[in-house]
Protein backbone atom coordinates (compact mmCIF):
# COMPACT_ATOMS: atom_id res chain seq x y z
CA UNK A 1 0.00 0.00 0.00
CA UNK A 2 2.84 2.32 0.92
CA UNK A 3 4.54 1.35 -2.33
CA UNK A 4 1.47 2.35 -4.33
CA UNK A 5 1.23 5.61 -2.46
CA UNK A 6 4.88 6.29 -3.16
CA UNK A 7 4.29 5.64 -6.82
CA UNK A 8 1.45 8.13 -6.83
CA UNK A 9 3.69 10.87 -5.51
CA UNK A 10 4.74 13.22 -8.24
CA UNK A 11 8.39 14.05 -8.37
CA UNK A 12 9.98 17.42 -8.79
CA UNK A 13 13.50 17.05 -10.00
CA UNK A 14 15.76 20.02 -9.70
CA UNK A 15 19.45 20.27 -10.26
CA UNK A 16 21.33 22.54 -7.97
CA UNK A 17 25.02 22.46 -8.57
CA UNK A 18 27.44 24.64 -6.73
CA UNK A 19 29.85 25.57 -9.47
CA UNK A 20 33.16 27.19 -9.04
CA UNK A 21 35.20 24.65 -10.88
CA UNK A 22 38.18 26.85 -11.66
CA UNK A 23 38.70 27.96 -8.14
CA UNK A 24 39.90 26.50 -4.92
CA UNK A 25 38.00 23.60 -3.31
CA UNK A 26 37.62 22.90 0.36
CA UNK A 27 37.50 19.49 2.02
CA UNK A 28 34.30 20.44 3.77
CA UNK A 29 31.53 23.03 3.57
CA UNK A 30 28.93 24.42 5.94
CA UNK A 31 25.29 24.44 4.91
CA UNK A 32 21.80 25.25 6.09
CA UNK A 33 18.44 24.43 4.51
CA UNK A 34 15.75 27.11 4.46
CA UNK A 35 12.13 26.25 3.78
CA UNK A 36 10.44 29.02 1.79
CA UNK A 37 7.97 26.56 0.31
CA UNK A 38 4.34 27.12 1.27
CA UNK A 39 4.11 23.95 3.31
CA UNK A 40 6.14 21.97 5.84
CA UNK A 41 8.77 19.57 4.56
CA UNK A 42 9.13 16.05 5.93
CA UNK A 43 11.94 13.47 5.91
CA UNK A 44 14.38 15.90 4.31
CA UNK A 45 17.64 14.13 3.57
CA UNK A 46 21.02 15.19 2.24
CA UNK A 47 23.93 12.80 2.66
CA UNK A 48 23.75 11.43 6.20
CA UNK A 49 21.78 14.41 7.45
CA UNK A 50 18.12 13.77 8.10
CA UNK A 51 15.49 16.31 9.21
CA UNK A 52 12.16 14.98 10.34
CA UNK A 53 10.23 18.24 9.82
CA UNK A 54 11.22 21.66 8.53
CA UNK A 55 8.31 24.01 8.96
CA UNK A 56 7.54 26.95 6.68
CA UNK A 57 10.18 29.74 6.90
CA UNK A 58 12.40 27.62 9.17
CA UNK A 59 16.18 27.41 8.65
CA UNK A 60 18.01 24.33 9.85
CA UNK A 61 21.12 24.65 12.09
CA UNK A 62 24.52 24.99 10.46
CA UNK A 63 26.08 21.63 9.53
CA UNK A 64 29.36 20.54 8.01
CA UNK A 65 29.43 18.33 4.93
CA UNK A 66 32.33 16.91 2.94
CA UNK A 67 33.10 18.00 -0.58
CA UNK A 68 31.24 15.89 -3.16
CA UNK A 69 27.92 15.14 -4.81
CA UNK A 70 24.76 14.40 -2.86
CA UNK A 71 21.10 13.73 -3.47
CA UNK A 72 18.65 16.04 -1.70
CA UNK A 73 15.19 14.63 -1.10
CA UNK A 74 12.19 15.91 0.78
CA UNK A 75 8.45 15.30 0.88
CA UNK A 76 6.00 18.17 1.06
CA UNK A 77 2.97 18.20 3.32
CA UNK A 78 0.81 17.61 0.24
CA UNK A 79 2.81 14.53 -0.68
CA UNK A 80 5.06 15.81 -3.43
CA UNK A 81 8.51 14.27 -3.50
CA UNK A 82 11.23 16.78 -4.34
CA UNK A 83 14.57 15.46 -5.47
CA UNK A 84 17.69 17.37 -6.39
CA UNK A 85 21.34 16.61 -7.14
CA UNK A 86 23.81 18.86 -5.39
CA UNK A 87 27.57 19.11 -5.71
CA UNK A 88 29.53 20.87 -3.03
CA UNK A 89 32.70 22.29 -4.49
CA UNK A 90 34.38 25.63 -5.13
CA UNK A 91 35.55 28.48 -3.00
CA UNK A 92 32.26 29.42 -1.32
CA UNK A 93 32.47 27.70 2.03
CA UNK A 94 29.10 28.68 3.50
CA UNK A 95 26.11 27.43 1.53
CA UNK A 96 22.41 28.10 2.06
CA UNK A 97 19.99 25.82 0.27
CA UNK A 98 16.58 27.45 -0.17
CA UNK A 99 13.47 25.66 -1.34
CA UNK A 100 11.29 28.30 -2.95
CA UNK A 101 7.50 28.21 -3.18
CA UNK A 102 7.59 27.15 -6.84
CA UNK A 103 9.30 23.91 -5.77
CA UNK A 104 12.78 24.86 -6.98
CA UNK A 105 15.84 24.38 -4.81
CA UNK A 106 18.32 27.22 -5.17
CA UNK A 107 21.66 28.03 -3.63
CA UNK A 108 22.49 31.28 -1.95
Amino acid at each position, binding site marked *: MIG*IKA*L*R*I*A*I*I*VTCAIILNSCSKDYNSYTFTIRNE*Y*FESLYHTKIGDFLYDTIVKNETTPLEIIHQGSYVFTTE*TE*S*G*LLIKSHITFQGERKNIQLILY*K*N*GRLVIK
Partner: protein
Amino acid sequence: MIGGIENINGYVTKIKLLLYLCVLLLCSCNNKHDNLPLRTVIIYMIADNNLDYFSVKNINEMEAGFNNNYNGNLLVYVDRAEGATPSHPIVYKISQDTTEAIMSEVAFVYEEQNSANETVMTNSLLDIIHAYPAQSYGLILWSHGTAWYPEGANISNLKNNDFDTTLRQSPYIKSFGKDGTDELCIKKLKNALPIHFDFILFDACYMGSVEVAYELKDNAHYIISSPTEVLSTGYPYQHIIEDLFEPHVNYEKIAHTFFISYDTLSSALQSATVSVIKTANLIHLAHAVSKIMNDTNKLQVTSVSKIQQYTANEKNFLFDIEDFICNITHDSNQIEACKKALDDVVVFKASTPSILGELKIKKFSGLSIYVPDSSNYIYYDYYKTLDWYKSSAYCNYCNMCNYSK
Protein backbone atom coordinates in the same frame (compact mmCIF):
# COMPACT_ATOMS: atom_id res chain seq x y z
CA MET B 1 31.56 68.99 -55.07
CA ILE B 2 33.89 66.02 -54.71
CA GLY B 3 33.38 66.24 -50.97
CA GLY B 4 29.65 66.13 -51.61
CA ILE B 5 29.92 62.94 -53.65
CA GLU B 6 32.12 61.40 -51.00
CA ASN B 7 29.49 62.31 -48.44
CA ILE B 8 26.74 60.73 -50.55
CA ASN B 9 28.85 57.60 -51.04
CA GLY B 10 29.41 57.54 -47.28
CA TYR B 11 25.68 57.71 -46.65
CA VAL B 12 25.00 54.99 -49.22
CA THR B 13 27.61 52.77 -47.56
CA LYS B 14 26.08 53.40 -44.17
CA ILE B 15 22.57 52.66 -45.45
CA LYS B 16 23.83 49.45 -47.09
CA LEU B 17 25.52 48.47 -43.83
CA LEU B 18 22.33 49.21 -41.91
CA LEU B 19 20.25 47.13 -44.33
CA TYR B 20 22.77 44.30 -44.11
CA LEU B 21 22.56 44.39 -40.31
CA CYS B 22 18.75 44.39 -40.52
CA VAL B 23 18.81 41.33 -42.80
CA LEU B 24 21.23 39.61 -40.42
CA LEU B 25 18.99 40.46 -37.48
CA LEU B 26 15.90 39.14 -39.27
CA CYS B 27 17.71 35.95 -40.26
CA SER B 28 18.84 35.40 -36.70
CA CYS B 29 15.28 35.92 -35.49
CA ASN B 30 13.95 33.36 -37.99
CA ASN B 31 16.60 30.85 -37.03
CA LYS B 32 15.79 31.33 -33.39
CA HIS B 33 12.12 30.64 -34.13
CA ASP B 34 12.90 27.56 -36.23
CA ASN B 35 15.01 26.13 -33.43
CA LEU B 36 12.08 26.18 -31.08
CA PRO B 37 9.99 23.03 -30.63
CA LEU B 38 7.05 22.83 -33.02
CA ARG B 39 4.31 23.16 -30.43
CA THR B 40 3.53 23.52 -26.77
CA VAL B 41 0.16 22.09 -25.88
CA ILE B 42 -1.27 23.23 -22.57
CA ILE B 43 -4.08 21.45 -20.80
CA TYR B 44 -5.74 23.63 -18.18
CA MET B 45 -7.62 21.35 -15.81
CA ILE B 46 -9.88 22.83 -13.20
CA ALA B 47 -10.66 19.69 -11.25
CA ASP B 48 -11.21 21.25 -7.83
CA ASN B 49 -14.72 19.86 -8.03
CA ASN B 50 -16.51 16.56 -8.54
CA LEU B 51 -14.37 15.75 -11.61
CA ASP B 52 -11.18 15.16 -9.58
CA TYR B 53 -11.10 11.40 -10.18
CA PHE B 54 -11.29 11.88 -13.94
CA SER B 55 -8.41 14.38 -14.00
CA VAL B 56 -5.99 11.69 -12.78
CA LYS B 57 -7.43 9.18 -15.22
CA ASN B 58 -7.02 11.59 -18.14
CA ILE B 59 -3.43 12.56 -17.15
CA ASN B 60 -2.55 8.89 -17.12
CA GLU B 61 -4.03 8.53 -20.59
CA MET B 62 -1.93 11.50 -21.75
CA GLU B 63 1.23 9.80 -20.45
CA ALA B 64 0.23 6.64 -22.28
CA GLY B 65 -0.36 8.55 -25.52
CA PHE B 66 2.73 10.74 -25.33
CA ASN B 67 6.01 9.92 -27.03
CA ASN B 68 9.15 11.68 -25.82
CA ASN B 69 10.23 12.05 -29.47
CA TYR B 70 7.35 14.39 -30.31
CA ASN B 71 8.48 17.80 -31.46
CA GLY B 72 6.96 19.71 -28.57
CA ASN B 73 5.93 19.69 -24.96
CA LEU B 74 2.69 18.72 -23.29
CA LEU B 75 2.06 20.62 -20.07
CA VAL B 76 -0.85 19.94 -17.75
CA TYR B 77 -1.96 22.51 -15.19
CA VAL B 78 -4.16 20.64 -12.74
CA ASP B 79 -5.98 21.95 -9.70
CA ARG B 80 -7.41 18.97 -7.84
CA ALA B 81 -10.05 18.76 -5.17
CA GLU B 82 -9.53 19.08 -1.45
CA GLY B 83 -8.08 15.89 0.00
CA ALA B 84 -6.19 14.97 -3.17
CA THR B 85 -2.41 14.48 -3.17
CA PRO B 86 -1.68 17.26 -3.75
CA SER B 87 -4.78 19.48 -3.78
CA HIS B 88 -2.87 22.67 -4.66
CA PRO B 89 -2.29 23.33 -8.39
CA ILE B 90 0.73 21.81 -10.10
CA VAL B 91 1.98 21.71 -13.67
CA TYR B 92 3.13 18.37 -15.05
CA LYS B 93 5.49 18.16 -17.98
CA ILE B 94 4.09 15.02 -19.48
CA SER B 95 6.47 12.20 -20.30
CA GLN B 96 5.81 8.76 -21.71
CA ASP B 97 4.59 6.26 -19.13
CA THR B 98 2.16 3.38 -19.15
CA THR B 99 1.90 2.68 -15.42
CA GLU B 100 -1.22 3.53 -13.45
CA ALA B 101 0.66 6.23 -11.56
CA ILE B 102 1.43 9.73 -12.78
CA MET B 103 5.19 9.63 -13.28
CA SER B 104 5.68 12.92 -15.15
CA GLU B 105 7.98 15.57 -13.76
CA VAL B 106 6.35 18.50 -11.98
CA ALA B 107 7.39 21.71 -13.75
CA PHE B 108 5.71 24.20 -11.40
CA VAL B 109 3.98 24.20 -8.07
CA TYR B 110 1.44 26.76 -6.93
CA GLU B 111 0.03 27.43 -3.52
CA GLU B 112 -3.73 26.86 -3.36
CA GLN B 113 -5.37 29.39 -5.69
CA ASN B 114 -8.65 29.89 -7.47
CA SER B 115 -7.99 28.43 -10.92
CA ALA B 116 -11.32 29.82 -12.19
CA ASN B 117 -9.99 33.36 -11.72
CA GLU B 118 -8.93 35.14 -14.92
CA THR B 119 -5.69 36.61 -13.46
CA VAL B 120 -4.66 33.24 -12.05
CA MET B 121 -5.37 31.60 -15.39
CA THR B 122 -3.43 34.23 -17.37
CA ASN B 123 -0.40 34.05 -15.05
CA SER B 124 -0.35 30.27 -15.02
CA LEU B 125 -0.58 30.06 -18.82
CA LEU B 126 2.18 32.69 -19.17
CA ASP B 127 4.43 30.77 -16.75
CA ILE B 128 4.16 27.74 -19.02
CA ILE B 129 4.50 29.70 -22.27
CA HIS B 130 7.65 31.47 -21.03
CA ALA B 131 9.21 28.26 -19.71
CA TYR B 132 8.32 26.17 -22.78
CA PRO B 133 8.40 28.50 -25.80
CA ALA B 134 7.43 26.98 -29.13
CA GLN B 135 6.62 27.89 -32.72
CA SER B 136 2.92 27.45 -32.00
CA TYR B 137 0.58 26.74 -29.12
CA GLY B 138 -2.52 24.69 -28.50
CA LEU B 139 -4.87 24.82 -25.53
CA ILE B 140 -7.22 22.27 -24.02
CA LEU B 141 -9.68 23.61 -21.48
CA TRP B 142 -10.83 20.84 -19.15
CA SER B 143 -13.53 21.32 -16.56
CA HIS B 144 -17.24 21.95 -16.18
CA GLY B 145 -18.86 24.18 -18.77
CA THR B 146 -22.10 26.06 -19.34
CA ALA B 147 -21.66 27.52 -22.85
CA TRP B 148 -22.00 31.33 -22.76
CA TYR B 149 -24.21 31.33 -19.67
CA PRO B 150 -22.79 33.36 -16.78
CA GLU B 151 -21.77 32.14 -13.34
CA GLY B 152 -24.51 30.38 -11.48
CA ALA B 153 -26.55 29.17 -14.46
CA ASN B 154 -27.59 25.63 -13.65
CA ILE B 155 -27.80 24.14 -17.13
CA SER B 156 -27.23 20.58 -16.08
CA ASN B 157 -29.06 18.79 -13.31
CA LEU B 158 -26.04 16.67 -12.60
CA LYS B 159 -23.47 19.44 -12.66
CA ASN B 160 -23.49 20.33 -8.99
CA ASN B 161 -23.93 16.86 -7.57
CA ASP B 162 -21.38 15.77 -5.04
CA PHE B 163 -18.90 13.26 -6.33
CA ASP B 164 -20.15 9.76 -5.88
CA THR B 165 -17.74 6.89 -6.42
CA THR B 166 -20.54 4.67 -7.67
CA LEU B 167 -20.86 7.00 -10.66
CA ARG B 168 -17.32 6.42 -11.88
CA GLN B 169 -18.45 3.95 -14.51
CA SER B 170 -21.80 5.61 -15.16
CA PRO B 171 -22.50 8.26 -17.76
CA TYR B 172 -21.50 10.99 -15.38
CA ILE B 173 -21.24 14.26 -17.24
CA LYS B 174 -18.85 17.15 -17.01
CA SER B 175 -19.71 20.50 -18.09
CA PHE B 176 -16.03 25.07 -18.09
CA GLY B 177 -14.33 26.49 -15.19
CA LYS B 178 -15.63 25.49 -11.81
CA ASP B 179 -13.26 25.78 -8.83
CA GLY B 180 -15.34 25.19 -5.74
CA THR B 181 -18.20 27.62 -6.26
CA ASP B 182 -16.26 30.00 -8.53
CA GLU B 183 -16.73 29.92 -12.29
CA LEU B 184 -15.09 31.64 -15.22
CA CYS B 185 -17.64 33.26 -17.55
CA ILE B 186 -16.95 33.39 -21.26
CA LYS B 187 -15.97 37.07 -21.27
CA LYS B 188 -13.48 36.54 -18.45
CA LEU B 189 -12.18 33.47 -20.23
CA LYS B 190 -11.61 35.51 -23.37
CA ASN B 191 -9.65 38.11 -21.37
CA ALA B 192 -7.67 35.42 -19.55
CA LEU B 193 -6.18 33.93 -22.72
CA PRO B 194 -2.80 35.67 -23.10
CA ILE B 195 -1.89 34.62 -26.66
CA HIS B 196 -3.46 33.44 -29.91
CA PHE B 197 -3.60 29.65 -30.07
CA ASP B 198 -3.63 27.34 -33.07
CA PHE B 199 -6.57 25.62 -31.47
CA ILE B 200 -8.69 25.51 -28.36
CA LEU B 201 -10.26 22.19 -27.51
CA PHE B 202 -13.00 22.20 -24.89
CA ASP B 203 -13.13 19.01 -22.90
CA ALA B 204 -16.17 20.38 -21.17
CA CYS B 205 -19.92 20.39 -21.66
CA TYR B 206 -21.93 22.69 -23.89
CA MET B 207 -19.04 24.87 -25.17
CA GLY B 208 -20.01 24.28 -28.83
CA SER B 209 -22.14 27.40 -28.93
CA VAL B 210 -22.06 30.13 -31.55
CA GLU B 211 -21.84 32.73 -28.78
CA VAL B 212 -18.74 31.06 -27.24
CA ALA B 213 -17.08 30.57 -30.63
CA TYR B 214 -17.76 34.17 -31.66
CA GLU B 215 -16.45 35.52 -28.35
CA LEU B 216 -13.23 33.50 -28.78
CA LYS B 217 -12.85 33.91 -32.54
CA ASP B 218 -9.72 36.07 -32.13
CA ASN B 219 -8.13 33.68 -29.62
CA ALA B 220 -7.69 30.63 -31.87
CA HIS B 221 -7.83 29.48 -35.49
CA TYR B 222 -9.93 26.42 -34.64
CA ILE B 223 -12.19 25.43 -31.78
CA ILE B 224 -13.18 21.84 -31.08
CA SER B 225 -16.18 21.62 -28.80
CA SER B 226 -19.47 19.91 -28.04
CA PRO B 227 -22.86 21.65 -28.07
CA THR B 228 -24.21 19.06 -25.60
CA GLU B 229 -22.92 17.41 -22.48
CA VAL B 230 -19.55 15.61 -22.53
CA LEU B 231 -19.24 12.44 -20.51
CA SER B 232 -16.84 12.78 -17.60
CA THR B 233 -14.39 10.31 -19.12
CA GLY B 234 -13.69 13.06 -21.65
CA TYR B 235 -11.43 12.78 -24.67
CA PRO B 236 -9.56 9.53 -25.37
CA TYR B 237 -6.21 11.24 -24.82
CA GLN B 238 -4.11 8.14 -25.45
CA HIS B 239 -5.38 8.22 -29.06
CA ILE B 240 -5.27 11.95 -29.83
CA ILE B 241 -2.02 13.21 -28.28
CA GLU B 242 0.06 12.23 -31.33
CA ASP B 243 -2.26 14.22 -33.61
CA LEU B 244 -1.82 17.34 -31.48
CA PHE B 245 1.89 17.41 -32.37
CA GLU B 246 1.54 17.02 -36.14
CA PRO B 247 2.90 19.98 -38.14
CA HIS B 248 -0.59 20.50 -39.57
CA VAL B 249 -3.09 19.34 -36.98
CA ASN B 250 -5.90 17.27 -38.42
CA TYR B 251 -8.73 18.63 -36.29
CA GLU B 252 -11.36 16.53 -38.03
CA LYS B 253 -9.42 13.39 -37.16
CA ILE B 254 -9.22 14.39 -33.48
CA ALA B 255 -12.94 15.14 -33.35
CA HIS B 256 -13.76 11.93 -35.18
CA THR B 257 -11.60 9.88 -32.75
CA PHE B 258 -13.51 11.44 -29.85
CA PHE B 259 -16.83 10.74 -31.51
CA ILE B 260 -16.04 7.11 -32.37
CA SER B 261 -14.87 6.39 -28.83
CA TYR B 262 -18.44 7.04 -27.63
CA ASP B 263 -20.48 6.08 -30.69
CA THR B 264 -19.21 2.51 -30.39
CA LEU B 265 -20.56 2.21 -26.83
CA SER B 266 -24.07 1.14 -25.96
CA SER B 267 -27.07 2.57 -24.12
CA ALA B 268 -26.56 5.90 -22.34
CA LEU B 269 -22.79 5.75 -22.78
CA GLN B 270 -23.33 6.16 -26.53
CA SER B 271 -23.40 9.93 -26.03
CA ALA B 272 -21.30 12.45 -27.90
CA THR B 273 -21.59 15.49 -30.12
CA VAL B 274 -18.61 17.31 -31.51
CA SER B 275 -17.82 20.02 -34.02
CA VAL B 276 -14.72 21.65 -35.44
CA ILE B 277 -15.16 25.39 -35.85
CA LYS B 278 -13.08 27.49 -38.23
CA THR B 279 -13.15 30.84 -36.42
CA ALA B 280 -12.08 32.94 -39.43
CA ASN B 281 -15.47 32.29 -41.06
CA LEU B 282 -17.61 33.26 -38.06
CA ILE B 283 -17.81 36.87 -39.17
CA HIS B 284 -19.57 35.75 -42.40
CA LEU B 285 -22.05 33.69 -40.39
CA ALA B 286 -22.83 36.67 -38.18
CA HIS B 287 -23.35 38.74 -41.33
CA ALA B 288 -25.71 36.15 -42.85
CA VAL B 289 -27.74 35.94 -39.61
CA SER B 290 -27.85 39.71 -39.28
CA LYS B 291 -29.44 39.94 -42.75
CA ILE B 292 -32.30 37.78 -41.51
CA MET B 293 -32.56 39.68 -38.24
CA ASN B 294 -32.57 43.05 -40.01
CA ASP B 295 -35.29 41.98 -42.45
CA THR B 296 -37.96 42.57 -39.84
CA ASN B 297 -40.83 42.24 -42.33
CA LYS B 298 -40.02 38.54 -42.78
CA LEU B 299 -38.66 37.87 -39.29
CA GLN B 300 -41.04 35.90 -37.08
CA VAL B 301 -40.96 34.71 -33.50
CA THR B 302 -40.87 30.96 -33.06
CA SER B 303 -41.76 28.77 -30.16
CA VAL B 304 -38.83 27.04 -28.42
CA SER B 305 -40.85 23.82 -28.50
CA LYS B 306 -40.34 23.60 -32.28
CA ILE B 307 -36.56 23.74 -32.13
CA GLN B 308 -34.00 21.00 -31.45
CA GLN B 309 -32.70 21.42 -27.93
CA TYR B 310 -29.23 20.49 -26.68
CA THR B 311 -29.99 20.34 -22.97
CA ALA B 312 -31.61 17.29 -21.46
CA ASN B 313 -35.11 17.59 -20.02
CA GLU B 314 -35.91 20.39 -22.50
CA LYS B 315 -34.65 23.05 -20.10
CA ASN B 316 -34.75 25.73 -22.85
CA PHE B 317 -31.11 26.78 -22.53
CA LEU B 318 -29.44 25.79 -25.80
CA PHE B 319 -30.89 25.15 -29.29
CA ASP B 320 -29.67 24.06 -32.70
CA ILE B 321 -28.68 27.15 -34.70
CA GLU B 322 -29.74 25.91 -38.12
CA ASP B 323 -33.11 24.70 -36.87
CA PHE B 324 -33.63 28.09 -35.26
CA ILE B 325 -32.77 29.98 -38.46
CA CYS B 326 -35.15 27.81 -40.48
CA ASN B 327 -37.97 28.67 -38.06
CA ILE B 328 -37.63 32.45 -37.95
CA THR B 329 -37.91 33.26 -41.64
CA HIS B 330 -39.47 31.85 -44.80
CA ASP B 331 -37.00 33.54 -47.09
CA SER B 332 -35.31 30.51 -48.65
CA ASN B 333 -32.49 32.59 -50.11
CA GLN B 334 -31.57 33.94 -46.72
CA ILE B 335 -31.82 30.49 -45.17
CA GLU B 336 -29.56 29.02 -47.86
CA ALA B 337 -27.04 31.82 -47.39
CA CYS B 338 -27.02 31.10 -43.67
CA LYS B 339 -26.60 27.36 -44.20
CA LYS B 340 -23.68 28.02 -46.55
CA ALA B 341 -22.03 30.31 -44.00
CA LEU B 342 -22.62 27.73 -41.28
CA ASP B 343 -21.03 24.99 -43.42
CA ASP B 344 -17.95 27.19 -43.79
CA VAL B 345 -17.75 27.61 -40.00
CA VAL B 346 -18.49 24.04 -38.91
CA VAL B 347 -15.93 22.10 -40.94
CA PHE B 348 -16.67 18.83 -39.14
CA LYS B 349 -19.57 17.63 -37.02
CA ALA B 350 -20.81 14.36 -35.62
CA SER B 351 -23.52 13.29 -33.23
CA THR B 352 -24.81 10.12 -31.67
CA PRO B 353 -28.57 9.54 -32.00
CA SER B 354 -29.15 10.60 -28.41
CA ILE B 355 -27.37 12.01 -25.34
CA LEU B 356 -27.54 10.12 -22.05
CA GLY B 357 -30.42 8.11 -23.45
CA GLU B 358 -32.89 10.96 -22.95
CA LEU B 359 -32.07 13.78 -25.35
CA LYS B 360 -32.83 12.75 -28.93
CA ILE B 361 -30.65 14.48 -31.50
CA LYS B 362 -32.80 14.68 -34.64
CA LYS B 363 -31.19 17.81 -36.07
CA PHE B 364 -27.56 18.66 -35.59
CA SER B 365 -25.79 21.58 -37.23
CA GLY B 366 -22.83 21.53 -34.82
CA LEU B 367 -23.50 24.77 -32.96
CA SER B 368 -25.99 25.83 -30.34
CA ILE B 369 -27.66 29.21 -29.99
CA TYR B 370 -29.74 30.99 -27.36
CA VAL B 371 -33.42 31.35 -28.16
CA PRO B 372 -35.23 33.71 -25.84
CA ASP B 373 -38.22 32.38 -23.99
CA SER B 374 -40.05 33.39 -20.84
CA SER B 375 -38.22 30.56 -19.05
CA ASN B 376 -34.71 31.82 -19.83
CA TYR B 377 -35.25 35.57 -20.21
CA ILE B 378 -33.40 36.32 -16.96
CA TYR B 379 -30.18 35.81 -18.91
CA TYR B 380 -31.10 38.29 -21.66
CA ASP B 381 -29.36 41.29 -20.05
CA TYR B 382 -26.12 39.32 -19.93
CA TYR B 383 -26.68 38.04 -23.47
CA LYS B 384 -26.77 41.63 -24.70
CA THR B 385 -23.12 42.06 -23.64
CA LEU B 386 -21.88 39.28 -25.96
CA ASP B 387 -20.11 40.05 -29.25
CA TRP B 388 -22.42 37.67 -31.12
CA TYR B 389 -25.51 39.57 -29.98
CA LYS B 390 -24.13 42.79 -31.43
CA SER B 391 -22.72 41.38 -34.68
CA SER B 392 -25.78 39.28 -35.56
CA ALA B 393 -28.35 42.04 -34.89
CA TYR B 394 -30.00 39.62 -32.49
CA CYS B 395 -31.71 42.50 -30.71
CA ASN B 396 -34.30 42.67 -33.52
CA TYR B 397 -35.49 39.18 -32.73
CA CYS B 398 -35.42 39.69 -28.96
CA ASN B 399 -37.38 42.94 -29.31
CA MET B 400 -40.14 41.04 -31.11
CA CYS B 401 -40.36 38.47 -28.30
CA ASN B 402 -41.58 40.98 -25.76
CA TYR B 403 -40.85 38.86 -22.71
CA SER B 404 -40.41 40.33 -19.31
CA LYS B 405 -38.08 39.15 -16.56
